[in-house]
Structure formats: C-alpha cells, structure tokens
C-alpha cells in the first residue's frame, strides 16, 4: 500500500505509521511542523522493511488552503497514493472547552469541518483513479450525547455520520471508507486523565487498524471490549443517560 498519514507525528498515528512501514508499505507523512516531521520520517526509515526514504510535507488542519498542495506533494512522491489515514484531531475536556470558547471553535473546526473538507479532497482524488481507502479516526465519544464530552463528542458524531454516508454511497465505486472509533487509549491526548478499564495502547490500536485496512472493514471499535461497552451505552434510554455521569 502507498499511504498518506495525517497525524503520524504522535500517538496512534505514529504507531500506525510504524506498523505500516514495518510490514513493507510506503508512507508519506503530513503534519504541522517540519523539524518534527523530519525526525518522525527518520524514525520510520530505520524501522522500515523497504522504504529507504520517508517523504513529508506540511499540512495543518486549521489551514484548508494548504490541503491541495500537500496532497499533490504526496501524490508525486508516492507515484499516486491509494490509502489515506487521518488520526489528526484536537481534544479538550468539557471543562476546558467551556472555559475557552475560542479553543472550542478551533476544536470543532479541526475535528469536523476541516477534516471533512480534507476527506472530500481525498475522495475526489481516489475516485478519479478508480478507488482506494480512506481511514479516519473518529471516537466512541460520538456515539451518544454524554455529559463529559458534549462538545468533543459532537464533533466526532458529525464525523462518524459523514464517514458512514461515504461508505454507503461510494464503496461500490471502489472507495473504501473506514471509521475507527477508539475507546480510551493512553496517548498524549488523554494525558492526565484517569484511565478507565479497557484502556488501550497505541500499538494495540495500530495492529487492529492495519488489519482493518487489509480487510476494508467499514467500522472499527478498538480496543475490542469497547464494541460491547458501546453496544450497551447505545441502548440506554434517555432518562438513564441524564442520570449517569459518563
């Protein structure tokens, strides 16, 4: 596979990029900061089973005007990519987002509007070449309106619906859409939060996501137990959701 990764500098994106190069895939890294991208690229080169040089380009989800150039660069370096993985995203606790409306606006824009705009660009490109895979990290936080993640959850709920729609409409045309819904995963994003039971590691998620990429699964809950946890939470009636704290 020839994969473009947006968000590969940290957390689960870093782990997915490593898992891909280790099995011999070619990757292209997109991110916000060039010196950091360069170090990540070096790291991948030393882990890679094939790719001697991992190319990179700048792409900031807060600046949609740069999307086209970034994807052009990736296309050129990889000779036409067939897969795009997006893990980039922002998170803030409900408290923090309520205290700082400007940060809330940025989070909503990055996680929903601009991610969708980026995906649309990718969709057009992949459909033109007969198809490919678009794998995007949403969250279990988007499954129900929940007290601790009202704002963040809503950004991911919108994203999940968009990806579901794409899957329904374009799979036939060759565009495979994968919506990854991680539960709690121990990364820099969740730093300082108390891990609940079934908290996962980025490596665990990466292994699961690489399998989903090979199989083209439309929806992935990871780590595994979260599928069942969410099945229960999706069934809870409103009056219960109003009472409980999670």
């Amino acid at each position, binding site marked *: 596979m020839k994969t473009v990764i947006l968000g590969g*500098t*940290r*957390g689960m994106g*870093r782990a997915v990029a490593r898992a891909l190069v280790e099995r011999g895939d070619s990757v292209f890294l997109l991110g916000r900061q060039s010196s950091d991208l360069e*170090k*990540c690229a*070096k*790291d991948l080169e*030393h*882990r890679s089973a094939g790719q001697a040089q991992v190319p990179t380009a700048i792409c900031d989800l807060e600046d949609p005007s740069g999307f086209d150039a970034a994807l052009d660069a990736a296309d050129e370096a990889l000779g036409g990519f067939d897969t795009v993985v997006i893990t980039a995203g922002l998170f803030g606790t409900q408290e923090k987002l309520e205290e700082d409306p400007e940060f809330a606006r940025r989070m909503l824009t990055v996680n929903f509007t601009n991610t969708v705009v980026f995906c649309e660009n990718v969709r057009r490109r992949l459909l033109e070449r007969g198809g490919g895979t678009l794998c995007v990290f949403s969250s279990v936080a988007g499954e129900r309106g929940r007290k601790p993640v009202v704002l963040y959850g809503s950004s991911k709920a919108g994203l999940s619906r968009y990806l579901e729609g794409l899957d329904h409409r374009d799979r036939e045309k060759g565009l495979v859409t994968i919506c990854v819904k991680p539960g709690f995963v121990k*990364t*820099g994003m969740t*730093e*300082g939060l108390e891990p609940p039971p079934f908290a996962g590691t980025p490596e665990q998620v990466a292994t699961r996501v690489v399998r989903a990429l090979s199989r083209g699964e439309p929806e992935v809950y990871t780590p595994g137990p979260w599928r069942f946890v969410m099945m229960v939470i999706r069934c809870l009636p409103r009056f219960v959701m109003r009472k409980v704290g999670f």
Partner: protein
Amino acid sequence: MAADEGAVAVETVPGPTRRPILPKMTRPNSPPAASSRNGSPPPRLSGWGRLFQPGRQVLSEDLERLTEGAVLCRGLGRSYGDSSLPPASHPEVAGTTLADRILDFDVTSGRIRAEAGLSLFELNRLFLRKRWFTPVSPGTQFVTLGGMVAADVHGKNHHQKGCFGEHVRSLRMRIASGEIVTCSEEENRELFLATIGGMGLTGHILEVEFALEKIPSPWIWCESERIRDIDDFIRGLKEAGPDWPYTVGWIDCISRGSSMGRGILQKGRWAHPYLAPSKPPAFKKRFTVPFEFPSWVLGRPTVQAFNTLYYWKHVSRFQKGILHPDSFFYPLDMVNHWNLIYGKHGFTQYQCVMPESSGRGAARRFLELLTSKGGASFLCVIKDCGAEGRGMLSFPKPGISIALDIAVRPDTPQLIDALNELVIREEGRVYLAKDAFTRPEDFAAMEPRLAPWNQVRRRWDPEQRLKSAQSIRVLGDSE
C-alpha cells in the same frame, strides 16, 4: 546483577535492638495524609518495588518541551526504590516513554542515536533479527535508554564489557539552566562522566548515542551447572570469565552450613549460525499477574520450597543447548507485573558489590549474616564484576555483586542497616537504582566518590534545581 534478580522475598525476624527507622520510607504504604482539592486522594507513584509516594508523571512525545523546568525524568520506572520519584516539594516527574524515536543508525558500524524514552524491548524487537544487540543489557528489557545511562546499568557481560556507559558516545541533554547541550568524551566531558550513573541528577537526557554490537546469530548457546556452595560458585564464575562473554549465578540463600550459597551457574554466548535455528526468535507469550497477592503468599515456606525446587529442577549436573535470547537475558519478563506478588507492602532489592580486596570470604560472610537474620530470599543473583567504569558514580567495581529481593516488613530497615554495616566494613557499596532504605551516612561511608561528583553537579546546577526523592533521602539534598 546481571540478569538480576530473581525474585525474592526476604522475611526477617525482628532483631533485638530496634534502631530508629528512616524518616521517609518507614511506612511507605501509609495512606497520604492530605487529599487534593476535589476530594480524591493525591496521585502516587512508585518504583518497581511498589513503595508508593505522592507524585505524578507527565508524558509527552515532545521531551524538549516536557523537560523545561522539570526537576527529574522517569523512564519505565524499573528502578526499585525512589530513584525515579520526584521530591515532595515538586511532585511531578517528566515521563520519557513517548519520546522513543530512532534518529540515526549506521548499518556498517552499528552506531545508533535515539530519543531517551526508547525502550530496550523495542530496540531488541527491531534489531535482534538484523543481528544487532545492545552492548550491555540489564535483566529486564523494560527499561529506557535514559534509565540505562542514568543508572549506568551492567549485565551478565560486566566482566568483559563493563557498564552501558562505556559504550555511550554522546548525550544530548537539557541541563538545569534550561540550556540544551551535547556531552561526550570530547565535549563537556565532566558533565558526561557525572551523568553516566548520575541517576538523572545532572540533567535531563534527551538523546543517547551508542554503538550496537554485531552478533553471529540471534540465539544463545548456554551451558549451566549445579554448584555446591558459595566458594565453588565464586571459583566457577572466575574460571568461566575469560571464555564466556555472559556469566551469572542464581543462588539459594536459605540453605545454611555446608550447602550455603549452592545454586546454578549459567554461561552463555551468541550461538554460531550453523548451530542456531534458521528462524529469528519468535515473540514469547507472557503471563500476567492479575492482582496484588496477599502478603502471606511469599512467606518462608513458599520461598524455601521454591529455592529447593529451582536447585533440583536442574536435574543433571550439567546442561547445555540453544536458548531463546529472552529466556537467557530476561527470564523475569515472562511474567507481566510480577512485582504484584509481594502484596501491598511492596519490596525492595538489596544489591551490593564486595570488592576483590576483601577476599573470597566476603560473599560467604554476607550470606552468613543474611541467613542468621532469617533473610529468606527467592532466588538471589550473584555475578563477578570487572573493572570500574568511567561514570563518576557508577555502581560496579571489581569483586562480587550479590542481589536479592526483600519483601518489606516493619523490620526491613534494620536488616538493610545490618547488611550495610557489613558492606561498609568490607569496603563495598550498594546500587542506588535498587535502593530504598540506605541511610545517608552509610552511603557516604561507602562512596568516597560522592564529593567529587557533587562538585561537578554543583557546577552544572548551582541552584540545585534537579533532585529526586532519592537524592533528598540519601544524598543529603534539601527539600
């Protein structure tokens, strides 16, 4: 040492004289007095021995930013005592484990440069099948490069290869002033030598450059032998030294009298390609200890039964064959969270080195004292050490190192005091990466190198911004 550490519990009978116990670590598991703002208890942190203290670790991929203003770094927390714990006055440590990128690797020389949070586990996973291995490995692979430098770790090849620090080319560090500097034999040499074995107190290590070693195959040829007593053991280790790159002994330290110090001597080398399986070693499945065991589980009968079994499991006197490198170097890593078997009171490891100058009898005198105090340790590890390293505060020196795990009981501080008294008399010293109970005056008596090291430390950190719970407990730093 080397593969340190067999597990172990030392159970002790209260001594006749109860000396006053340590101010800080006496009841390490007592509930913290104050609660935080929202009513939940303040976060606690511990080393591998699970002696908890108030503290919190902050993690980020961006180690440069994370170490700005930090008082201490922590890797994988595999030091046993309080080396990786923050002082009470600044209860936050910079956790390095997310900063784990490999920045440079030269396939011809094996020279590698990586961020300090890279684990030895990951390094082995990536490089063993390419036939590269770390020049020095401790008895667990769940350690970071930063931790390996800061403790200047040693392994089963100490008699030939010395400590990890001997193989480090350069370090990139954030020092107390906030500046980022590089140090090596050529550049900022004094900082370099004080940092190797300096327990994180001279600056935060951001990147480590060292050389991997080319190996003929990723499998180990191992020969092992049942040994009758402690004197034979020391003889066996010395005799094997010149021919075998890796040697270590596991001794039963419950048996007394003529079989005192009986055990298994293990010798290993990388297998020749024509002897080794053609496949690279597969990932080994691990067990997990699911919960904290009740304290009685590791009582004297269990420990005694275990030691006897371990000795006689080695049915024929000699055994040899090909071993998976994990089984040879990291037998304890087979069980995740094995530190939970010591129950809620936790445990400590006592590791000391008895110098060659004190003669063969020193190890015997040590075991005699230990068994007379009723110490019952699960396996205890013995290893001969080679030359003293260049790290100013590096632990090993020529002689015999003994390491044993001790379940913490109310009288553990007295047992440690008694063992330390003997070690001071024999001119030996203890290993800070394992220590939780040594008194400052005892450490100072063992460590004539402390003053010169402190001078260097003061030059690079005049305001003493960097400190740990350990440096306050044993090195006399102010809170």
